[in-house]
């Protein structure tokens, strides 16, 4: 049975009281760690990288939480921080890759380095297809396909119009289908 946590507004109120600050933040971590981890992991692929990025995300959330406006959704804001942190990490990786002159897509090589990678399995083929997508489309596809995020919420996370997100998702699905049928 999943653990029940207090709602975000109560957690934020507890966070603002010095005596309950740490406990409230620990609860925030426990409540959102898995969702944020898998969102990051699907982007950076390796567990060690996802762990580093996730810890940095929580550090940033701790530092920014005092200024967080209660009219915005905590969950949405945390996703935005996690997305930006993952994109920064991928940008760094890209720079390293250009220095090392590695010709293979970083995400693809990371996937192939996974312990239980099996290219004959359709789920892994799907992951390879996702890695072929441009970053923005990859994020949109993951948020919709795995996290089942409504476009309205996704629009706040990615600061993009709902129409653009729908179009992006549509293109992503078509590219993935094409990859799966032709590889």
């Amino acid at each position, binding site marked *: 049975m999943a653990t029940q946590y207090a709602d975000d507004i109560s957690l934020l109120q507890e966070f603002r009281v010095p005596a309950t600050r*740490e406990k409230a933040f620990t609860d925030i971590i426990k409540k959102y760690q898995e969702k944020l981890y898998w969102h990051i992991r*699907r982007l950076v692929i390796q567990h060690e990288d996802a762990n580093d990025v996730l810890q940095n995300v929580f550090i940033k959330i701790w530092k920014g939480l005092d200024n967080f406006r209660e009219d915005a959704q905590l969950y949405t804001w945390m996703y935005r921080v996690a997305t930006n942190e993952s994109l920064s990490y991928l940008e760094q990786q890209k720079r390293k890759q*250009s220095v090392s002159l590695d010709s293979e897509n970083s995400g693809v090589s990371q996937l192939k380095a996974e312990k239980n990678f099996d290219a004959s399995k359709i789920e892994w083929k799907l992951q390879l297809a996702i890695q072929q997508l441009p970053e923005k489309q990859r994020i949109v596809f993951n948020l919709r396909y795995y996290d089942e995020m409504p476009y309205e919420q996704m629009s706040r996370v990615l600061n993009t119009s709902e129409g653009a997100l729908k179009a992006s998702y549509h293109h992503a699905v078509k590219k993935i289908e094409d990859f799966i049928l032709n590889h």
Partner: protein
Amino acid sequence: MKRNSAIENELTDLSPVVSGISNANIFRTPPGFFEELPAKVMSRLKAEEIEAAAGEEIGQISPLLASLRDRPTLAVPVDYFNNLPQSITAQLHDNAAEVPVIHLNRKNRGLWTRYAAAALVTGLIATGSLFLFNKQQGKEMDGGMSDKGDMAFISAGLPAIPDLDLANYLSSVSESSEWVSENSDSEFDDTGFFAMDDAAIKSMLKDIGYDVLQNYEEELTGNPSL
């Protein structure tokens, strides 16, 4: 994992192929990862708070210095840090293609070191000796002048020169105003003499006896003073 029906329908409309693939998670995490993560994050936060407290120390000692610390003063070119790794790597590649370095063998290197040490010691001894010799000679010269109050050390060398030669030399030297201006030490004149004011000259002359000054005037003019 069961999908949200609206999202499932949307995906089926877009691509039955992709819709047919299970969205089950194929990645794994180490055992106990999510149980340990909150404590790890909290411990990192505490470590960062300690570091931040150390950074605030300067604020307590000197608010001015603390305010200046983060103020940008030096600028770097646009994209300098972005391009730095590439430029360093490029330089490393260039250097690798340069002429190979030939190392001196250990035996010769030792020999050179010994020669260098010997030259250094010799140089130190020679410089020291020269310094001591000059100092001694200087003392003798200074002592001669100050003790005897005359130019005995110069006069001692003069008898070796015939009087006629000295007279010829002195008569051959022109003392026209052009010669004086060409051969005078202007820096000395400026600093040593013309820079003196009347008070300083009076102060210098007060220790010289009246008789001495009178004799000097007679020598210059050839007439006894009044």
